[in-house]
């Protein structure tokens, strides 16, 4: 088996699949599931599912307001999860960790709270052509509401950020630079420390969409140089319904609240309210209590492997898949070909076959991939395709999966008579 020979770490790939119950699921093809859609959402290890069930079964109560033991227990676990997240990304303090639903809400929170109080009609907001809609549409809305101008850093033909274009945008002194660390649509890894450095040097507040990086590589906010970082639990083996906004303490302190209601207040009268301290100021109402503990379990699991190991494994799979698919006739690959600039996400197009049809036939072969615009329509427009097929890797994938993918591509080409 190709997969077993090439795997560099015993702890990744096939050996880990036993931890993920989904791989017990039979597929219509009769073969084991090859799950290549982790960029959309990751599968869950038993440890995460168990942690959730444990919380609900024996440690559940509302948080933040209870005096009885069960609620103190629930609160300690919820706030303990915040400390886990803070440690995982190297935050100075758990106070800088705001729990939200997902990366999308995290970015909206910044656009509404920081944006509407700091951006005016003469200001400039800069995003890039590489962004997921989550890091684009909220800024369009901010600019529409405030009259500010939105500009986009160009990308190159091989899907990289055009740093010269970034520099020239920065010369105009934008208030906000919103940029992704890793593109979900093309897999591009941006030179993020350089980008944040340039952005902050130009006086911009830098918002990093780390939805595709935190799950897949070491990330340390102390070194990153960003002001805000957004990511989702569900892409990093954690539950759905929980995501994270990290922000610099001083910024969070100065920002007005976004959603309002219980827990986020210090004192309320009929006519007005004073706000609680951060991060609770930004967590109105009952949060995703158990889901936070599930996210902490996911972090434990990832730390058990080591984020360096996760990244190394995906880098190796990328190299193998890029050369395997790149050598197949009728297959066009998108994005940079340097493995240091490309995460474990491969977007491709088959000549004469629409990505939806590719994904359908791959599915019949037991290979789960995503087809579509990957919530990055402007990027698709930029590359002149309506959509692509995307295979994305995580720690439970291996070289065998790449062979299954390659075989299924051939099968697709046979159906369409292009092979």
């Amino acid at each position, binding site marked *: 088996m190709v997969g077993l020979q090439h795997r560099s770490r015993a702890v990744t790939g096939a050996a880990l699949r036993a931890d993920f119950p989904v791989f017990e699921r039979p597929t219509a093809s009769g073969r084991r599931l090859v799950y290549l859609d982790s960029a959309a959402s990751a599968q869950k290890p038993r440890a995460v599912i168990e942690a959730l069930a444990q919380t609900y079964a024996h440690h559940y109560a509302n948080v933040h307001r209870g005096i009885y033991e069960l609620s103190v227990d629930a609160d300690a676990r919820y706030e303990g999860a915040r400390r886990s997240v803070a440690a995982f990304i190297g935050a100075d303090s758990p106070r800088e960790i705001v729990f939200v639903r997902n990366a999308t809400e995290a970015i909206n929170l910044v656009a509404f709270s920081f944006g509407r109080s700091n951006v005016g009609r003469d200001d400039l907001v800069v995003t890039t052509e590489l962004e997921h809609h989550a890091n684009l549409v909220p800024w369009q809305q901010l600019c529409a509401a405030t009259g500010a101008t939105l500009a986009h850093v160009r990308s190159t033909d091989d899907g990289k950020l055009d740093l010269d274009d970034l520099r020239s945008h920065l010369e105009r002194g934008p208030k906000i630079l919103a940029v992704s660390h890793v593109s979900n649509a093309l897999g591009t890894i941006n030179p993020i420390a350089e980008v944040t450095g340039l952005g902050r040097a130009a006086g911009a507040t830098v918002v990093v969409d780390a939805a595709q990086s935190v799950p897949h590589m070491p990330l340390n906010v102390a070194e990153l140089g960003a002001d805000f970082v957004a990511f989702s639990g569900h892409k990093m083996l954690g539950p759905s319904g929980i995501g994270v906004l990290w922000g610099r303490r001083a910024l969070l302190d100065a920002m007005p609240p976004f959603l309002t209601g219980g827990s986020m207040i210090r004192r309320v009268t009929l006519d007005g309210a004073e706000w609680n301290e951060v991060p609770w100021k930004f967590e109105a109402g009952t949060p995703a209590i158990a889901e936070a503990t599930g996210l902490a379990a996911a972090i434990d699991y990832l730390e058990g492997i080591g984020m360096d190991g996760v990244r190394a494994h995906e880098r190796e799979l990328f190299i193998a898949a890029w050369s395997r698919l790149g050598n197949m006739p009728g297959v066009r690959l998108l994005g940079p070909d340097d493995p240091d600039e490309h995460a474990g996400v491969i977007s491709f197009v088959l000549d004469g*076959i*629409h*990505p*939806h*049809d590719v994904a*359908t*036939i791959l*599915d*019949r072969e037991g290979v789960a991939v995503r*087809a*579509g*615009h990957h919530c990055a*329509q402007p990027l*698709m427009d930029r590359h002149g395709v*309506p*959509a692509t097929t995307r295979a994305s890797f995580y720690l439970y994938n291996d070289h065998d999966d790449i062979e299954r993918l390659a075989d299924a591509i051939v*099968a697709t080409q046979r*159906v*369409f*008579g292009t092979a």
Partner: protein
Amino acid sequence: MDNLYRDFILEHYREPHHRGVLDPADLSFADSNPTCGDELAVTVRLEPDSGRVAEVAFDGRGCAISQASASIMSDHLAGMSLDELRAIDPRTVLDDLGVPIGPARFKCALLGYKVLQGAVRGAMTDWPEEAEVLGDASAGGSSP
């Protein structure tokens, strides 16, 4: 392999019927599949006297399912009145397509239908309800 990509589907995909743009046209509309960004446009010419469809043409890019579905549907439209167009049942469109369509390809299979409804009504219409068209059991969301 395949009960979805039958030969006639692939033939319609490669050589769709009633392809192109009518100019001038009495009705026209364009819409897209939010999942993949596929865009399809329709132009319709009506008989001056009866107001019935004289000619119809689809134009755009898309997958085999959406192209074949529009192509097959286009063969049935000539001679229909606007009321008849409006009354087309999306279930009939799926039946005419003749291959099993599940939730995953629901929008692909009905993009042509939706664009045609937009042309007839002169305005964007909602996607048909999956639960109604496919039956509750197989119905998922109809969002991108």
